[in-house]
């Protein structure tokens, strides 16, 4: 296994590799710089504090971005004590509302202006307040405070009105929807609750509705609107991992949050956790952090599955081609897909409400034997029973890349190879290759098992 470690590193978690990328900005700074920075900071703070103290006020820092949607949409910058530091219009209606307005706003005064301009009425009686902030505690605090301010305004001015508060989901899909339809991330987080619930409830259709219509659709379909997404998705992953340790006594190896979903009457972060023995999906309540539902399936570790596949296919480990990374590496030389079940993507399968994990969970192992056979072995992940063994053809010891390299070396082309092969066909143990380099075209026939050149010539 000489040099295997260097190659094995290629397959470790890409996130780890990315986080260690050279030149990446990190918080670490040299000690001298730290001291200097600390000194400068203290000096600046002292000066500022003295200045502000003289003026009787110290400016608040922006702690969160808050989206206020009625139909006019606004983006607010808010301090951690709930003070609105700035208000920006996010659409034309909002610009109308803010025209000639004051410098400082409260939630109440902003809603007052919206109402005065006719955007908040008995027909359009809903406002959505969405807090985007990485800090869980600050998010909860702001949702509570701003929500209370909005409710107080409505109680006084529009008693039948609705104030919906939520935390913006930190999910790539939300950003995508917001960008695509030109709506706020708050509105995007909200409409996700309804997508796919009924025929016609597409992102396209829902993005064109105002908040009042979306609320009504939620009510008609039994989707709760008073939900607060207080939990971040990384926290949900930690909760799901803990659940695996505590209930399945299995050590989690990875956790993936699929995204936000409506399930069991609650907003949840649906999270897949893979341990050494089990694969499980947890629905973690996005507000309380409680695990609402759990599904799991026993799935033996990869070595056990591999051994079972080899013996089940009637081979021994010795019959399987020796894995020499240096001389014979191939991307899919041997891999275990855990699990491809019922021809479906695992994620779709596990996410279905009716997914029966007591049913078969199938693992496919692809084996390349020393005599060149390529086998698909399907086995039951739980019992290790063989379900099917299919010989799907032969595998060759060279691939297209190898073929081009062999040919270019044979043709004496040392640098700049290859252009894309014009064609490369592997059949009956022969690789028939045509490629171009520096304007010259070459045709080669190569033994696909041994890599030996059978014939080669420059054809143009």
């Amino acid at each position, binding site marked *: *296994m*000489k*040099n*295997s*470690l*260097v*190659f*094995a*590193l*290629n*397959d*470790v*978690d*890409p*996130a*780890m*590799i*990315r*986080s*260690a*990328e*050279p*030149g990446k900005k*990190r918080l*670490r*700074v*040299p000690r001298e710089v730290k001291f200097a920075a600390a000194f400068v900071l203290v000096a600046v703070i002292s000066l500022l504090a003295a200045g502000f103290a003289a003026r009787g006020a110290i400016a608040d820092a922006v702690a969160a971005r808050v989206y206020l949607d009625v139909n006019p949409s606004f983006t607010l910058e808010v301090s951690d004590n709930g003070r609105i530091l700035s208000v920006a219009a996010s659409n034309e209606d909002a610009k109308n509302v803010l025209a000639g307005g004051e410098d400082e706003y409260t939630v109440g005064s902003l809603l007052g202006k919206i109402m005065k301009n006719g955007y908040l009425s008995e027909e359009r009686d809903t406002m959505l307040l969405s807090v985007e902030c990485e800090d869980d505690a600050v998010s909860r605090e702001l949702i509570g405070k701003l929500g209370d301010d909005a409710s107080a305004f409505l109680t006084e001015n529009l008693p039948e009105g609705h104030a919906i508060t939520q935390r913006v989901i930190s999910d790539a899909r939300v950003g995508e929807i917001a960008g695509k339809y030109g709506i706020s991330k708050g509105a995007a987080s909200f409409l996700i609750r309804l997508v796919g619930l009924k025929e016609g409830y597409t992102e396209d259709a829902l993005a064109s509705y105002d908040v009042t219509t979306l609320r009504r659709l939620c009510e008609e379909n039994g989707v709760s609107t008073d939900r607060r997404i207080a939990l971040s998705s990384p926290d949900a992953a930690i909760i799901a991992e803990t659940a695996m340790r505590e209930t399945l006594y299995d050590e989690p*190896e990875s956790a993936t949050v699929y995204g936000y979903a409506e399930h069991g009457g609650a907003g949840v972060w649906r999270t897949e956790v893979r341990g050494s023995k089990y694969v499980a999906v947890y629905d973690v309540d996005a507000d309380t952090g409680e695990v609402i539902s759990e599904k799991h399936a026993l799935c033996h570790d*990869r*070595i056990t599955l*591999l*051994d079972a596949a080899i013996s089940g296919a009637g081979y021994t*480990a010795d019959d*399987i*081609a*020796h*894995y020499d*990374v*240096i*001389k014979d*590496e191939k*991307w*899919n*030389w*041997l891999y*275990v897909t855990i699990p491809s079940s019922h021809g479906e993507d695992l994620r779709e399968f596990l996410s279905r409400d009716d997914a029966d994990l007591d049913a078969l969970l199938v693992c496919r192992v692809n084996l390349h034997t020393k005599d060149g056979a390529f086998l698909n072995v399907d086995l039951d992940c739980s019992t290790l029973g063989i379900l099917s063994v299919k010989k799907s053809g032969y595998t060759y010891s060279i*691939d*297209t*890349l190898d073929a*081009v*390299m062999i040919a270019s070396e044979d043709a004496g082309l040392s*640098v*700049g*190879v*290859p252009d*894309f092969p014009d064609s490369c066909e592997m059949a009956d143990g022969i690789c028939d290759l045509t490629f171009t380099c520096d304007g010259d075209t070459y045709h080669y026939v190569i033994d696909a098992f041994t890599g030996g050149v059978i014939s080669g010539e420059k054809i143009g």
Partner: protein
Amino acid sequence: MEDREIISMLNERDERAIVGIQEKYRSYCRFIAKSILDNDEDAEECLNNTYLAVWNSIPPNAPRDLRSYVGAVCRKTALKQLERRLAKKRGEGRAIIAFEELDGVLGEGGDAADEIALRDALQKFLRSLSKRSRIVFIQKYWYFRTIGEIAKDLAMSEESVKASLFRSREKLKNHLKKEGFEI
């Protein structure tokens, strides 16, 4: 060009995908290839081979993180190229030093099952390291950075980097022993 557009073009066999990969990841791949091969000409050849290997492997592969995938393909291609060069005894480089250092940790031999177990064990080992030690280890043995370069990047002294690597290698040796590998 977005990664998903590139992947969809690759699936449709549209060669513009390669232009997209070149535009986005050329400098990243060049950085990896140069670190391993220590030679501009070879690095350039490695880049061409990388694009071709990505073209040939997507589909069937469908990476979720294209940058990491292209980086891994490039690293693997460069190592393969380095191996060929070594066979012809064409010089030495920083990657070879890394090979030798890690060679000392494992014995010879091993089969496919060992390879898979090794990947798993390595993954566990990396998770067990502190963040700082992990970054140092990966920069040394994935990116093949020199001690001096790592020290500069992480604002550490060269001695601290060396000590960290030494401790990590010892830890790896013990970890692999515990996992049943022959040391």
